[in-house]
């Protein structure tokens, strides 16, 4: 069915209020909803809890929200590309919860899929297991991990139709499908908005049921580590 097509990025993020928990798709700078993030920066909404694999770089992606001190807490797996991140953590301005990447992906998937908790081997015998529930199945130890949900999910897709169906391009898929499903309200920034019926029903990565609003946006697609064949 027809979803909201937002007239501007400002309006797309308009409902996101202080103290919201947001999930943001992407791995590094690949597959991030660039313009939705820029709109959040402009909105000056603050005290956000952000769930995303990384936290951008100092001058792009979620790094911009960070620089603007809009983030209170970050849940991710790798935040090493960002100096301001380090500064804020050491200064006690930013709370950080680091979680293994596969655990993060599965926790988000579980959140969208109505699975409250599951067991995974990652983290057993490490500092992550301290104070956590460890349980043995078939002689192997596993950690209990809980599903994650968000008030708002921001994702980026290559194409989206007006019914909210999304397809992603190459490794820009990454965390986007699970994040789309785990948000109470999911807003998709698409490179190309198409009509229902234009996407092959066998090729849709995110079914429209998970998406509440869409907006077309043109992407800079900054490259973090250009590596060429010599």
């Amino acid at each position, binding site marked *: 069915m027809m979803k909201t097509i937002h007239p501007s990025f400002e309006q797309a993020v308009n409902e996101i209020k202080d103290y919201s928990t947001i999930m943001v798709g992407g791995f590094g700078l690949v597959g991030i909803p660039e313009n939705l993030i820029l709109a959040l920066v402009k909105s000056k909404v603050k005290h956000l809890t952000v769930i995303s694999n990384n936290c951008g770089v100092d001058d792009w992606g979620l790094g911009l929200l960070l620089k603007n001190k809009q983030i209170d807490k970050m849940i991710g797996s790798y935040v090493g590309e960002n100096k301001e991140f380090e500064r804020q953590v050491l200064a006690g301005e930013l709370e950080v919860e680091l979680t293994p*990447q596969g655990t993060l992906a599965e926790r988000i998937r579980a959140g969208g899929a109505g699975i409250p908790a599951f067991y*995974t081997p990652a983290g057993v015998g490490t500092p992550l297991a301290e104070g956590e529930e460890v349980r043995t199945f078939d002689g192997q130890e596993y950690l209990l991990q809980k599903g994650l949900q968000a008030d708002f999910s921001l994702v980026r897709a290559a194409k989206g139709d007006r019914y909210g169906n999304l397809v992603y391009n190459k490794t820009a898929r990454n965390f986007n*499908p699970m994040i789309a499903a785990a948000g109470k309200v999911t807003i998709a920034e698409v490179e190309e908005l198409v009509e229902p019926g234009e996407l092959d029903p066998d090729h849709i990565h995110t079914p429209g049921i998970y998406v509440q609003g869409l907006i077309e946006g043109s992407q800079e697609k900054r490259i973090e580590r250009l590596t060429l064949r010599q």
Partner: protein
Amino acid sequence: MAVQLDKAIVREKIARRAEQEIESGFYVNLGIGMPTMVANYIQEDKEVVLQSENGLLGIGRSPYEDEVDPDLINAGKETVTASVGASYCSSAESFAMIRGQHIDLAILGGMEVNEKGDLANWMIPGKMIKGMGGAMDIVHGARKIVIIMDHVNKHGESKILKQCQLPLTGKGVVDRIITERAVIDVTEEGLELVEVDEGWTVQEIKDSTEADLKVHPNLLEASF
């Protein structure tokens, strides 16, 4: 300059030896940094599929300038291409592959390994925490875990220890350690020296290794 050259030679030597761990028919995950270099030395007669945990099964070579797609990177965030027969998937599916033991081999870097195969490679207390990325999942997922690293740290101290000092990435997860000096297996009875590189004696390896080493009865010397 001489030191840097030495470093490059050492890294290449380790990478070339690590390549021998890859059998034709393997699905392999290569960690960020030195492990990624191993891809450069994979023999052409081996059929190998490289997995990247950000959602690519079938990493190809680096792109020429006109082939660069900003949406196509490896887990080290470097631009790559996809090999013929590759497929893309979500991060959840990618780690399902890993956690479900569908990956035959992972080659990862290490800071410390101990006698029981415990691995530390993600944080140094007091230094900024960058995060563990996918390492904690991979060490429990791939069927065989090979750690490649320098034999000693920059102070000349062994990185192969009785007990790891750094926070662990995984407990009892390492199968084999490859350094520029030796190849060491983690066995039920502790560490076992299986290969020694040319220029080193067994005694020198023992002296530069804090952990106890048994010597394999069929030890290979000057092996790589």
